[in-house]
Structure formats: C-alpha cells, structure tokens
C-alpha cells in the first residue's frame, strides 16, 4: 500500500508498504531515517520514540497505515541544520551517551518533557517522563543531569 505523511517537515510518499509494517520500519527502511531505533518491538524500551502529531509514541506500535496523513518528527528533525538542540548538546556533554542506542528515543521523550515544563523539572518529573525509555549503559544519572542542564539553559517551551 501507499502511505503519505509528513516527516520532519517534508511530505513523503512511500509505496509498497506491507500492511503489517510498523511506522518504525517505514521510517528506518523506507524513508532513510534510521535514527529511531528498534530494540524491543513491543513498546517496552522507548528507543523508537517519535512525535506523531505532536505526541511522543513508540513508532514500533504504530501501524504504518495509521500514520497516513499524519505528521512525524524524529530525532533527525530536532537539530536545526548543524545547530544541535540544547538537549542534544547536553546529552553529549554530561556523558548521557554511551552506546547511544537508547539516546534518540530518550532525547525525543525528554524534548517533550521540556516542551511541557517551565524551568527545570524536578527529578521525580524527569524520572516519570523518561520511565518508558530503557538505557542499559548509563544507570540513568547522567541522563537526568543532561535534562536538567538543558532545561537550565532554557531548552523549555519556546
């Protein structure tokens, strides 16, 4: 089938999509956007988190056809040209990135949190907002520090 949707501001028409494919597969294998990661295929790890119509979702749990006519924003769509989003900068700076496989999903989830929060969110808010994103390398502490740092630099609602 054909799926037409907007990804990172660009309209995409994707043909030959198998009806059982996920949005994640379409992004990764058909749109050349492998930034969203496939780590569990069941919504348990958050590595594939993208914005769908402004809401963070697990792209592995969205059937490709459900994105028809929708607007998707992936980790590839957060930086403005070569200028990283403050969250992306903070992740690198704080050591929140090790193997990095969870990073794209975490950054989208954290991006959503900061977009909804004025000022620096409390640790408990950060933890609850990122509870759907598994990281196996960092033990999370440097991720929390990165979110705080980015929020402190004014990465909040614009």
């Amino acid at each position, binding site marked *: 089938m054909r799926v037409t949707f907007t990804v990172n501001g660009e309209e995409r028409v994707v043909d030959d999509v*198998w009806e*059982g494919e996920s949005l994640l597969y379409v992004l*990764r*294998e058909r749109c*050349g*956007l*492998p*930034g*969203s*990661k*496939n*780590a*569990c*295929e*069941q919504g*348990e*790890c958050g*590595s594939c988190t993208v914005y769908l119509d402004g809401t963070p979702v697990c792209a592995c749990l969205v059937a490709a056809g459900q994105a028809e006519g929708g607007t998707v924003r*992936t*980790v*590839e769509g*957060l*930086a403005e040209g070569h200028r*990283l989003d403050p*969250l*992306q*900068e903070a*992740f*690198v*700076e*704080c*050591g929140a*990135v*090790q*193997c*990095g*496989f*969870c*990073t*794209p999903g975490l*950054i989208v989830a954290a991006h959503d949190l900061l977009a909804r929060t004025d000022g620096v969110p409390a640790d*408990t808010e*950060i*933890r*609850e907002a*990122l*509870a*759907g*994103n*598994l*990281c*196996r*390398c*960092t*033990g*999370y*502490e*440097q*991720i*929390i520090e990165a979110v705080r740092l980015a929020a402190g630099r004014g990465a909040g609602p614009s």
Partner: protein
Amino acid sequence: MTTRLESGVRGGIGDSPVRPDGNLKVTGEFAYSSDLWMDGMLWGATLRSPHPRARITSVDLTEAVKLPGVHAVLTHEDVPGARCYGLDHRDQPVLAIDRVRYQGEAIAIVAADHPETARRACERIVVGYEVEEPVTDARRAALDPACPKVHESGNIVRHQPVRVGDASAATADVVVTGEYEVGMQDQAFLGPESGLAVPAEDGGVDLFVATQWLHVDQEQIAACLGLPAERVRLTLAGVGGAFGAREDLSMQIHACLLALRTGRPVKFVYGREESFFGHVHRHPAVLRYEHGATSDGRLVYVRAEIILDGGAYASSTPAVVGNAASLGAGPYNVPNVAIDAYGVYTNNPPCGAMRGFGAVQACFAYESQMDRLAEACGLDPVEVRIRNALSEGSTIATGQVVDMPAPLTDLLERVRAFPPPAARITGEDGRPDLLGLPGGVANTTHGEGVVRGVGYGIGIKNICYSEGFDDHSTARVRLELVGGEPAVLVHTAAAEVGQGLVTLQAQIARTELGVDRVTVAPADTAVGSAGSSSASRQSYMTGGAVRAACAAVRARVFALAGRHLAAEGRGGRVPADLALADGKVVSESEGVIATLAEILHAEAVEETREFRHRPTRPMDPLTGQGDSHTQFAFCVHRAVVDVDVELGLVKVVELAAVQDVGRILNPVALRGQILGGSAQGLGLALMEEIQVRDGVIRNPSFTDYLIPTILDMPPMRTQVLEHPDPHAPYGLRGAGEPPTLSSTPAVIAAVRAATGRSLTRVPVRPEHITGHAMDKPSDLG
C-alpha cells in the same frame, strides 16, 4: 621516562573531551549495525529449534525454497569449512547437524527480499525431531556419572580446584554455611545482533558487524567458510551495547554464507525475542560455602563448591570457571582454602561472558557469607570485612601476591562514612511521594509496611586476560601534516561498544604527541588484533598499545628534529630532554626547538606497536596455584533500601560506591562505567532473570525480562581513588566490571537488614521476601 606535559594538554589524559561519536549519536546519524543498508540487499532469517534436546531426523526445505522472494535456504550441508566454531572449544555447529542441544539452536537460514518473506520461508521448513529428555540440572551434570551426556566428551567443561593449607582439617570457633543461587542474567544490550555481509570480487566477503572482538570473529568465520582470513574482512559497525554478549558469534557466519551463496549483500537483524536465543547469558550458579573464623571474626578457612551452568556449548565457560575459582575466596586473607569450581554442559541456554565474568556469582556468595559471619561474631559488617581485607603484599588463594595497591580498608571506611540518605520524601501536601516508595505510582503503599535497610558489598575482579593467555593489542599511529597542521590518525581494531574507547584513544594520542587534532579510524581487521572489549581490559591494553605506538612515533619525530637542526645549521647536538607539546618539539632546558610543521614537511611518521601486559600463568590443575592474573580491581558499595515487608516490594533509596581506578583517564566516562555497572548489579539483585524451565526460556521479551528503569535506579554517590598500579600504563586499573560485582550483594544485604530474611537467591522476588514462594528455600527465615 620522558618528561611529558600531560596536565597541559586539552582533551588529553585526565580530561573529559566530548565523545567523537557523540553528535552523531544524539542526532540519530550514527550508523549502528542494524542501520546498514545497501542496494539490492537481502534479509536473513534463522530457523531455530523449539526443543532443548532432540535428534534431527529430517529437514525438508522444498516449500521454503518455492516461496517467491526467497533467494537461498541453507543448512549445515552448505557450510564449506569447519562445521563448528567456538571461543575456546570449537563445539558449536554453525547450523545444527544431527541434533539440537538447546532451545533456539539454529538449524537453517534463509535470505529473502523482505524480512517477512524470510520469516514465512522459515515457517515452511519442515524439521523432523526425535525429542529427548533434556539435561537441565547443572549440579547433577557435574557430579552424577549416570547423568546423560550433552556432548560425547562428558558434561564437565572444566573443574578447577583451589587448595591452600588444609581446609578440610581446619576447625574454627565460628562456622557459617550457606547455599546460594544466582539466576541467569542477560546482558540485555539495547541494539540486537545485526550486521551486513557483502560478497567481494575476490571470492571473499566483507562483514560489517557489531562485535566485541573483530579478529576472533574473523578467525572463526574464515575457518567455517573455508577461506583464508585475509578474504574475510571485518569492519566494526555501530555497537548498541555489548557487556559480554557479543563475544561469541551470532549471525556472522550465517550472513556470510548467504552472501556468498546469493552473490548479494545480506543483512541480519535479530528481534528482541530472537536476541534472547542469539547470544550467551551469564552463567547461573549454585554455590555452597562454609567459612570458619575465630570468635573475633578473622577467617580461618573457606570451603566452597561452585557450579556454573554453561548450557549447551562451552563458549567462555573455562575462563569463567577460572575466575570463580581463583577469586572465590573474595578480597580476603584466608589461610586455608578448598574451592571446587565446575563449569558444565547442560541443555539449558548457552552461557558465557557477561560483565563480571565468574566473579559476580562468587561475590554474591562470599559477601553473603561475610554478613553471616558478622552476625555470628556480633560485628559490624564493614568491620568484619576490614579485619580480613587484602592489602598490598597479601596473597590470594592462588598463591599470587597482590603486588599493587589494594586499599580495601580505605574503600570500606569511605563508603561507610558517607552521610545516610534523607528519610522518605514527602510531597507538598505532607503525603509521601509515591515515586519515592516501594511500588511507586502503582500505589501499593503510602508508608505502610515500609522498613529501611542498609547493606554493604565489596568485590575483587581480575583485569585483562588471565591464565597464560597471550593477551595483546595492536595500534597504528600516524602523524602527518594535514592542511599544514599536525594531525594524528589512530588505527586499532578495538571495539567501541559505548564505553568511550574512541575518546580515550584520542586522549592518549593528544597527551603523548602534544597534538590537538586526533582522529580515530574505524576499527577493522586491516590492522592487528586489539583483543576483546571485555575483562575491563581496553584502557589497559589498547590504551597501552596506542601509547606505545605514540612513543615510537615520538622517537622518530625527535630523530627528525635532530636532522632538522642539522639542516638548519643549528649544530648536531639534540637536547636530551625533548618533549612534544602544542604541535611543537620542545626542550625543558632550551625551550621550543621547532614546530612539527617545520619538521615533518610532507613526511608521515607512522608506527605500529603490539602491547602485552606482563605474562600470567595457568592455574595448577590440582591446586589452582599460580600467578594467573595481571591486575586486581576493587569496588565497594553501600545500598540503602526501603522494603515494603508485607508486599515484598523494594525501592532502592541510594547506592554509594567507592572504587580505586589507579589513575583517572576520563572522569565523565569513568563515572558512567560506575553508574552503569552498578545498575546492572541492582538488576541482578532485584529483577533480572531469564527463567528457564525444562530447558525452555519462559520470558524472552522485555515485557517479562525486566531491566531497571530510571525509576528503579536511585541517585548514586560515587568516589574514586587513584592509587597507581606500577605495572600498568599510566598506573590505571580497569574499571568497567568491579561495580557490577559489589552492587548486587550490597542491595541484597540491605533487603535482608530490612526484612530479616536470609534471601539466598538472586534475583530476589517479592514472594521470597513475603514467604510465598512456590519452592520455598529451606532457609527462608
């Protein structure tokens, strides 16, 4: 030693420059093995056995081959070279031959134009099985001669005794015993097994893969493909975590076989479920310990039987047994030791490397015993450890002298001295914040039944490969002018698995060569082996190799500086106190001699060096004696937990760790290792287990194999000590594994303190805390 201006180098040793792959990773542009894509590529899929033990009576591919879109379906008959591979024993078939020995063993592989087509083709392969009763009891496999054999060679992969003094005759005032069990932990890296094999014009293959050790993969793959090693070229693709799980082969040979057969690139990406069958796990273990001590808590003897279930194939079981045996007495002085460690074959899932590697299982048991001893002697748990702790000059159970700093007393005292965490957090309305309570937002308690507990754990881990293994790493370093500026290219085959090795290699080159601009080339087999990214060894080994290659480059630059001076007519004498700094050759006494730009011109200075740590020796097969290790590392944890004793739910309130690393090379990356390692230890303590019954995995998914979330990890305090090891480059001590050892026993000790339960098995489940387990351990308090 030449004078170096180490501290002055920005982005050098001791600094935390940003990761060179950091920007790519945060923007989603970093190419992991699962992201690779080529025109015309096919997708691979694997048919796996549903049975843990069966004879294969027939394999019919007819229907699979007929499916449109299928390009190849292969079985063991299509393996042109060696039929089996393995890290140590080559006992694991590339594709099952006449029998399967574990659930999930690969039988056939398919290449098709869509992953769904490949899966459907697998479904059409008809395999005839004669199912047999699986061997699943590791202790029986080890000790009962009547137990059916998993392999013809017998069920014992390795039995390693350790004998010191006369532990069998020793008596003591205080005796504590315990039987402990460690469940099967999974590395649970987030990036499942994947890679892309591309057939080459020379009849060979290029493989892009996420692995921990390119050369050991290359060697095994080439043997099975029947190709010379130089025609099997590997390049490291982006690695989504490893933790030991990528030390064995998974899809490598399969992808190469299909690529060579179809003449097209073939990509494999395992899903999460397949990943649980696609790699080895941490050995589950049953450990029986008896410690004897004086009434004031000084150890007299230890007797232990450690049984490690290696599952169907050997993988790295022999080395895991070596660690469990040699480190089984823990970081303690014990005059009489009798340890017997066994690694066995069963029809359970194969087990091999995971962070901590044999030392984790033993640590849980001996630290549990130390707490029992403390209680029996009426001593504080930290005090009993201090009374027995190793120090520099002590001898461990293998007779090896600890000839490096071993500040265990200091570590223990520091962790004990940390202020206690605050009492429970309450919200603005005075009600307890659910997120701070056991059960969290699941709203199981508002404080009812919650008891706080504190516990400690300390461990000892060997760093680098042991027991006489020829452990080495290779580095090629090239210094040249690029656009008129000096630039360094570092090339090794060392696997960046997330730990930050790419950053570290560049830091070392900056420090050694005084050049800011350093690039680390992609890791591949075009340069010599770096050994594995495991055993906490890469800072030591590849760090050592990069440093050695830099030193060789530096020596040549100094020679060039002499030539330059002569050519300039500035005399033939070269100052003896030369150093490289800030792109210049400088002399402490005479100042700047020349810039690198002036010296190098169009010439590139390139040197390759192999680095080896001091040799180690095998363990004596009967007594375990021998200097089998090159370095020891230590970490201590304090855990503070709140336990809902009525419901058996645990909230870890705080973890504190103190570790000695010899020398801090990169503070941010080091802290990440301590935090991440501690998290994996917490996971083993409280939730992580591959549940296997009758050889069948019951929870191969992230829905039921639980790893800690951000709500499970508490805030952590860390402190790092730097007592340099005189034998190691920069005095460093490997740092990745020790935190994984000690956090598990610390968390469990804290839960015991809160509940009064003896809790002899990890992971602890709520029903063990409340006493509603199905199979109640006899000592469940």
